């Protein structure tokens, strides 16, 4: 585990994703929100970027800032894209809100040569402690919802995610975890990183 970088002016996970992307690539951001990541990638990485976003507000805000974004649903609308259409397909802080994460990942793998996924780690020690000590569903900084109104219906830990990737024949090319506002590069998710990571960013590619 090596120290990656300190806090930046923007959202640190967005900078981590940007660092994984080769300049000039074709990128699809699934669940792009207001388009913050796409805008960052177009500026810093000169990508040919597209976005899909569920919320109408997010789509309209993205298009108003000049980004190519369509209203759509990760669970339903990825089927329309052709094979190998993009160099990178990104799912940033969205996989836990999808209805069928496995199918979404499978589609992403089909559409893009590389897949980047960032998500909150349910194995983080703070989450574990909250449940252990209070006996209530954990609400943390990256998981700030009550159990009854959370959009996060498919939470997982680092180890769970790594197992799913293996199941889908996706190799982990790169993985970075966040602990507070610090980031660390890891070779493979283990017991330690699963305990300390509040969030993680994975760069995946098809297994040969």
């Amino acid at each position: 585990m090596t120290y990656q970088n300190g806090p930046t002016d923007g959202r640190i996970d967005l900078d981590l994703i940007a660092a994984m992307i080769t300049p000039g690539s074709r990128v699809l951001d699934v669940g792009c929100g207001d388009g913050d990541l796409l805008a960052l990638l177009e500026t810093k990485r000169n990508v040919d970027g597209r976005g899909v976003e569920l919320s109408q507000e997010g789509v309209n805000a993205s298009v108003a800032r000049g980004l190519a974004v369509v209203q759509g649903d990760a669970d339903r609308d990825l089927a329309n894209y052709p094979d190998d259409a993009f160099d990178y397909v990104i799912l940033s802080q969205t996989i836990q809100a999808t209805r069928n994460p496995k199918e979404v990942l499978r589609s992403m793998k089909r559409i893009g040569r590389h897949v980047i996924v960032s998500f909150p780690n349910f194995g983080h020690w703070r989450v574990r402690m909250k449940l252990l000590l209070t006996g209530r569903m954990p609400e943390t900084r990256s998981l700030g919802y009550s159990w009854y109104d959370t959009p996060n219906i498919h939470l997982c830990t680092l180890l769970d995610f790594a197992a799913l990737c293996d199941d889908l024949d996706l190799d982990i090319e790169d993985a970075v975890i966040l602990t507070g506002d610090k980031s660390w590069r890891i070779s493979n998710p283990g017991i330690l990183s699963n305990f300390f990571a509040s969030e993680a960013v994975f760069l995946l590619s098809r297994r040969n």
Partner: protein
Amino acid sequence: MNTIGKASHPQGGGGPQSTEFEEGGIRVRRASQTFGPDEPLALDSGVSLSPFTIAYETYGELNATRSNAVLICHALTGDQFAASTQPLTGKPGWWTTMIGPGKPIDTDRFFVICQNVIGGCMGTTGPRDTDPATGRPYGLDFPVITIGDMVRAQAMLLDKLGIDDLFCVIGGSMGGMQVLQWAAAYPERVFSAIPIATAARHSAQNIAFHEVGRQAIIADSEWKQGAYLAHGTTPAKGLAVARMAAHITYLSEAALHRKFGRNLQDRDSITYGFDADFQIESYLRHQGSTFVDRFDANSYLYITRAMDYFDLAADYDGVLANAFRGTKSRFCAVSFTSDWLFPTSDSRQIVHALNAVAANVSFVEINTDKGHDAFLLDEPEMFATLRGFIDSAARTRGLGA
């Protein structure tokens, strides 16, 4: 209106006619172009239309590299007077909300062109013009035209104007169909395309509404099998009813309720008769009666037919995505939540086809209760998103801010 008459080649025969004037801070050129026997329009029906004239307007100036042209495609009952006063009605242009200095389609930056469609009745050749074969108005002898024919004619005019490619093609409803047709037929000539409140094919329900309108016209005894001009009659009642029925489809129940509800028209109680008791009845009658003053009944038949026949995928083995395969154009589709004539699902079908060929596409659905007509109205969110899309495309094309 400060008119500077500058008529040239006053007698047809291939020459353009134009006047220029300034209106609302826009440099307007009102013109028409006649295509002679050596330049026929090859129609999808197999018929060759010749001669023919296209009436059009331009706003702003074409830049030195001819890279800032924007084509506005008008809807069924629209015309070329998109941003200038309509000479027949004296009313402002139909899209002054969108086009003008500092507007999303900024006439200080772009050279804007709007052409009356083939089959129309505002100066472009249509069924009320003289058939050279008979010396009488065409009437039903006018060939059936399609959206493809409209676009082909528009391209011929652009050739005349020396415009190889368009920075943007934009239009709503039938205008949006033309935008899609442009993108499919002339992809290399379209840098960006904005189809608004439209569909890649006309639905059965929409064909049905059009058929009601056409039958209303045909049932009018003044229609005279389409030869009403020769008989000196006007099927005004039929055309008015067609307009009334169509107008309902352009609105939404929510908008009708908000605007009229069950309010009574200039009376305190119902009259137990068939006068226009309700405001909505009076409103529709007004819409019908003012429409007949500016529109030709046969044009209405022909243009509604063109929309009915539109099925872009049919020309591409039934697969809509094939219409856009390899496209380098960037698209921004727009729909409105309360539009039931061209619902969001129609736009989504277009977007899915564009996604299937990994095209550069944006798609916004605007939340409004104003129905299909919303694209003509003051919809700040539509303006904001289109401004973003157009400005981004302009930057990419090197047109500056």
